[in-house]
């Protein structure tokens, strides 16, 4: 197993130009098209499906997320094992993960879309996504205004750095992936039985 800190591919360390290389952008366009297409087909551009999940009435969102996690996890860890991809791990900072997460959730319920699904919603002609997207831009700016002081305070609370669940539990990654994939699959079967959608 390869340590994420000793990543295989080294990202460019010189400052990035204001516009990325054309081939990188073309890949981004193709993957973005596919992502938006899948989100819309999955119904997660729909207000009632997203809010329905938060009301625990419609379980589409959790089903999509868990399936994506199972499939993605198996592939990404396999590719990583053979040194074909880097992992992209964001640091665990308990304070900001929890407080940021709760604020995000509250905002999600008010807006009815999340940052990715809002884009798909806008594409399907749900124009109210525009109000939320404008708010997302404003909120990002507000965060940037406070970013220096947040770095010195809240973001220091419970800073554990880059850490994965298997490392935390001292289980080999491959073993953890297999067991976890099985557990999540069982979870999905149960969910499919008990949920009406």
């Amino acid at each position, binding site marked *: 197993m390869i340590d994420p800190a000793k990543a295989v591919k080294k990202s460019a360390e010189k400052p990035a130009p204001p516009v990325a290389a054309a081939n990188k952008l073309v890949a981004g366009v193709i993957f973005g098209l596919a992502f938006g297409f899948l989100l819309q087909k999955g119904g997660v551009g729909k207000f009632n*499906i997203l809010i329905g999940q938060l009301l625990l009435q419609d379980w589409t969102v959790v089903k999509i997320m868990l399936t994506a*996690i199972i499939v993605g996890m198996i592939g990404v860890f396999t590719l990583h094992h053979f040194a074909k991809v880097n992992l992209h791990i964001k640091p665990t900072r308990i304070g900001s993960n929890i407080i940021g997460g709760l604020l995000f959730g509250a*905002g999600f319920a008010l807006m009815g879309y999340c940052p990715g699904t809002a884009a798909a919603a806008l594409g399907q002609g749900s124009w109210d996504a525009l109000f939320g997207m404008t708010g997302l831009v404003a909120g990002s700016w507000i965060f940037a205004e406070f970013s220096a002081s947040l770095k010195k305070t809240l973001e220091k609370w419970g800073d554990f750095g880059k850490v994965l669940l298997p490392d935390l539990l001292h289980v080999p990654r491959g073993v953890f992936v297999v067991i976890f994939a099985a557990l999540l699959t069982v979870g999905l079967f149960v969910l499919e039985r008990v949920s009406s959608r």
Partner: protein
Amino acid sequence: MRMRGKASCLIGGLALLPMRTAVAAEQGVNALNYPGPAWSPYVVGAGIGVLSWLTFYFSDKPIGASSFYAQVSGFIGKLFAKRHTESLAYFKENPPRVGWEFVFVISTIVGGAIAAITGGEFVNEWLPPMWEARFGDSIALRAGVAFGGGILMAFGARLAGGCTSGHGISGTMQLNVASWIAVICFFIGGIAVAMTLFKI
């Protein structure tokens, strides 16, 4: 006299409030009364999982959406206050640029449009029907709530380090502890506020 009028109005309004909510609770807003997904969530979920392999392999990037909005805010900031924007810690670390994440989210809009139009699901509406059933037909109310929600959500995403895509899918599949904490908190916060809005 005027003050008393206002006061009685307020009291009358307060007395009416529980009645209105009682009626709403009786009606019960049920998300299942509105259109479901076109495709099976398992097909779509597996598709997003495979898409992640491809973005990792070909672009060395995890799928994510929220940083796009930060970049847009940085562009707008630079337009009006270049030096101030460049002095902010967040933009020093993440200079706004047209990069992979930027074109990815723009294309997500187009991808959603293609799926909706080809699937006969293009809605062309300013208010989601479920919202309208609960809160009426005021676009201004919807705009205000969604805008405020967007502000909270972006602030939360930046603080937590990602959104439902970056943490909720890409981070969780990499078994990142931060992402599992964040996504659980997304749902706790979301469920609490959604229940308050639509159930009480």
